[in-house]
C-alpha cells in the first residue's frame, strides 16, 4: 500500500488529530490508543484534508518553510501514515 500521487489525501474519519496543551504537541487519537507526533509530521497531516494530492502538500510545505527537496521525506512519512490507517485516498 503506497500513496497514489494523482489522488487527494484525507485524514481518516476513524482517527482524530488534536493539539495537546499539556504535551505541547499534536497527537493522533484512535480506539484506546495515541500516537505522539513531532512537529513536521503534524504539519504534513494537517494538510491531509481531502483537497490536496502529494505534490500539492509538498509544494505548500516547501513554501511555508522556505525549503526545497522535501518530496522524499514527505512521501516516506505519508506511506507510513497510510499503512497505519491515519490517512486515506478515495
Amino acid at each position, binding site marked *: 500500500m503506497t500513496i497514489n500521487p494523482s489522488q487527494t489525501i484525507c485524514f481518516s474519519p476513524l482517527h*482524530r488529530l*488534536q493539539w495537546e496543551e*499539556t*504535551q505541547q504537541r499534536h*497527537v493522533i487519537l484512535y*480506539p484506546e490508543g*495515541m500516537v505522539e507526533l513531532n512537529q513536521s509530521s503534524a504539519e504534513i497531516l494537517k494538510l491531509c484534508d481531502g483537497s490536496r494530492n502529494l505534490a500539492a502538500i509538498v509544494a505548500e510545505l516547501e513554501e511555508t518553510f522556505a525549503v526545497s527537496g522535501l518530496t522524499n521525506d514527505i512521501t516516506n512519512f505519508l506511506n507510513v501514515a497510510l499503512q497505519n*490507517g491515519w490517512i486515506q485516498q478515495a
Partner: protein
Amino acid sequence: MAGSSKHKITSPRWLLAELSYKCPLQCPYCSNPLDYAKYPDELATEDWKRVLTQARKMGAVQLGFSGGEPLTRQDLPELVRYARELGYYSNLITSGYGMTEQKIVELKEAGLDHIQVSIQSSSQELNDHLAGTQSYQHKQEVARLVKKHGYPMVLCVVIHRQNIHQMPQILEMAENLGADYLELANTQYYGWAHINRDALLPTQEQFIEAEKIAQAYKEKVAGKMKIYYVVPDFYEDRPKACMNGWGTTFLTIAPDGAALPCHSARELPGLDCPNVKDYSIEQIWNESKAFNFFRGAEWMQEPCQSCDEKHKDFGGCRCQAYLFNGDMYSTDPVCSKSPERYRVDAAIASAREAAQATEEKPLIFRNSKNSRQF
C-alpha cells in the same frame, strides 16, 4: 495527605471511569473485585464532571467509560457530551446489553468516539452460557449498528479454555461484522478469573495453536482489521510491564469514587486508596500514598532490585505478586528469575489436570449473590 514522592511524576494519560458495578451479565472472568457488592454507592453526575475536568487539566486524554455496564447510567450521554467538550477521546466499553439504535445515535451526537463491544464466543450457546444471559443475537446486532453509524468498532473477545478452540470462528465473526479492531484478550487471572482459574486457563498447547491461527489471520486481514493480541503472561518467562509503570499513565476511578492506580488495586492491602469526594485528582495523583506506593524502583526486592530489566517491566504486576506470593513487594512470579515461579507452574499444572478430568468444576458466576460471599 500521607506520602510524598522523590520521583519525577509524569502526568496521567488514561482515565478509566468505572461508572457502575451494576451489570446484567455474569461473566466468570470479570475484572471487577470479588466483593464489589460492598461498594453499592455511585458518584453523582457532578462528581464525575469534576473528575473529568481535573484529570483533563493534568493531561488525561484517553477516556474509557466502563463498569460493570456503563449503559446502566442514565447520565451517560450527558457525561459523554461533557467529555467531548473537554477534548477527551471517549471510548465506551460495553457488553452491548441495553443498547438501542436510538442510543447509539444519541451518543454519537454527544461526541462519543468509539464503542467497544464484547462478545463471549462465536456461538450463541456458549456466549449465552458464559454471559449468564441471552445476549448473543443482540450483541451481533449492536456490532452492526455501531458500524452503520460510523464509529470505529473494536470487538473484544476474552479468550480462555472454554472458547479458545473457537479461534478460527471468532476471527471470521469479527471480519464478517466489519470490526476495525479485534481485541483477543487472553484472560488475566485477577478477581473472578482468579477463582475460576482451573476452569479457564488453557493448556500451553492450546495457546500456541490459537496464537498461530490468530497471527496467520493478521496477515490475511492486514489493512482492513487490526488484531490486538493480549498475551497470556503465564506462558511467558518475563512479566508484563503492568500499567506502563505504577502511577505513570493510568488512573482508574471506581463507581464509588475510589481512585486506583490499576483496576485491581482494590485487592492490595494497606494502600488506603483515596476518594475523589475527599481530594482533587491533582492531590491524588501527586501526593497520595496509594499512587506513590510503587513509583520508581526503591520498593523492589531481589531479584528485581539488581535486575537490568527492572526499568523495562517495573517488576511486573503487584496484584499478581500479591495473589500468588502473598507479598505485593515481591517479583511477579511469572518471571523465570523469581524464586516463586513454581507457583505459576503449579497453577498451570492444576488447570491441566482440571481440563483432563472427566467432570469439570462448575464456574462461579459474577453476580451480587456470589459477591456477597467475599
